[in-house]
């Protein structure tokens, strides 16, 4: 099987730095190569409205500056995973250019750093953004560099279990991957499907594909306590329905948790 490609914005920020390091640390687990991208966003000064060679040379100047920034970051991070040798540098709106590259470039994954906020509003804003609503592949949001290789497959009553398991198996081709199955709900009263049914269903589908979770359990508590309970995991994998804008308890948990999260849609 070909190595999967992950598109990763490289910037001089803490979040980008954390994402790159985490990704390289877990390159073996995920089996992916890193395709760096950098977008130089033009300011709104008069030169950007110029035309002809002035605009062209101004844009190539920006591209050159962007390339230097990427090279500087990649060099300083001394990454020991597989990084594709030609970083992509674009000029324009960050959201539009990344979306364009994800659509055209056939990437398997979009990886971005984010420093987790005590206030989950920022995470919800990210999920509502054009980039996240329209991207054609799953997104890995990296909050911290976590050593643990433990993975949790998160389920709630809105999860499309079949789809989530398919995505999980696509990323973790080794059936011996160490992972837990976790059904989350604030409580188990009148839940449809009931968390136990979710676990059973996911267990069945996984078994058919040859996977067996190390542990399957239900997490019944508020988002704060749940995010604490999950913080030892090196990765949480969850499905999200992008058509529904409703705030769900699982979204709150994912907004608060400090582990990286792989969002499948």
């Amino acid at each position: 099987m070909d190595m999967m490609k992950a598109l990763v914005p490289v910037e001089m920020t803490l979040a980008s730095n954390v994402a790159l390091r985490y990704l390289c640390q877990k390159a073996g687990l995920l089996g992916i190569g890193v395709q760096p991208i950098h977008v130089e966003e033009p300011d709104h000064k008069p030169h950007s409205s110029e035309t002809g060679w002035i605009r062209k040379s101004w844009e190539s100047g920006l591209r050159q500056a962007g390339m230097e920034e990427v090279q500087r970051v990649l060099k300083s991070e001394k990454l020991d995973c597989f990084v594709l040798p030609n970083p992509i540098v674009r000029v324009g709106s960050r959201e539009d250019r990344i979306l364009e590259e994800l659509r055209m470039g056939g990437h398997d994954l979009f990886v971005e750093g984010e420093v987790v906020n005590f206030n989950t509003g920022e995470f919800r804003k990210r999920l509502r953004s054009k980039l996240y609503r329209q991207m054609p592949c799953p997104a890995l949001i990296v909050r911290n560099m976590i050593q643990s290789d433990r993975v949790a497959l998160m389920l709630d009553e809105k999860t499309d279990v079949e789809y989530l398991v398919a995505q999980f198996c696509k990323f973790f081709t080794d059936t011996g991957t160490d992972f837990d199955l976790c059904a989350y709900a604030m409580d188990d009263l009148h839940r449809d499907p009931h968390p136990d049914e979710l676990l059973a269903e996911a267990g069945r589908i996984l078994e058919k594909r040859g996977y067996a979770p190390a542990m399957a359990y239900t997490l019944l508590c508020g988002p704060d306590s749940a995010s604490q309970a999950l913080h030892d995991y090196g990765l949480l994998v969850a499905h999200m329905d992008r058509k529904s804008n409703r705030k769900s308890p699982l979204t709150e948990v994912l907004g608060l948790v400090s582990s990286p999260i792989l969002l499948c849609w």
Partner: protein
Amino acid sequence: MKLLVAVDENAYSRYAVHQAARLAANTWPDMVMLAIEKNRTYVDEDDLNPEEAHPKIRLLHRCRTDFLEALGPDVDLYGREEDLTLAHKPGKVLEENASGRKSFLLHLRHGDPVKAITAEARAEKSDLVIVGCGHHDAAWGRGSDVPGKVADAVECSVYIIRENMTPSRVVCCLDHAHVSQESLELINQWVTLYGAELEVAGVLKHGDLRENVEAKMTEVLDYYLDRGIQARVRVVDESSLEAFIEAGGENDLMALWLHHQSPLKRLFSTSKVASLVNHASSSMLILR
């Protein structure tokens, strides 16, 4: 490093003394142990033996014994003689000198505990003041809310330790780029001693993490990762910071870098630092 441990008769002070000993075993600081007594009303104290004239001396002796026991018999840093002489020092301080290879002074002051601890920290040029306190209130000695007021008043770093709490997570709030090496090392010490996780929380101003704070967070993160300490990062809005600190649980140690250039310093006016420290469920470390 110069460490000042202020003690009273309560069990939390003994707990604080034990924690101070753990730090001392690693950092070999010069020690001052301070007790505060009421203003003396009797005139002829020379007619009494020192322990009768100053009952708090007995408290200091007991705390010193606890401290030395917690250090263990193999740690030969401070004097272990029993017969110490009480001497009058400038600034109305009574002193017993228990120094060995490192300085260890037992000091007795009288009057208001907050003023006494502040004056002692200033006079001894302490780097860290350690004060124990109870779980649900911050009554200390004879005064209420003493730990909070001390945290606010002293010029050096302060560690308010709640009794019998062993933090499993140390959360450091950072809102400026003037983090001293000493404070990084101090956090390193506590994280190692408690085997705790470390979280660095950057404070957002108007929703943004300022460039210098972000750069400092990266540096701090690298510093700890290089030392094999698993550090995590998080951000918190300035407006939610108080709630964030108050949300710190009993197993947390909340650390605030209150540098004079820190916007936190403005954000947390005098009463707020005191109130936060007094009402938090977690132990608190104020770094300066």
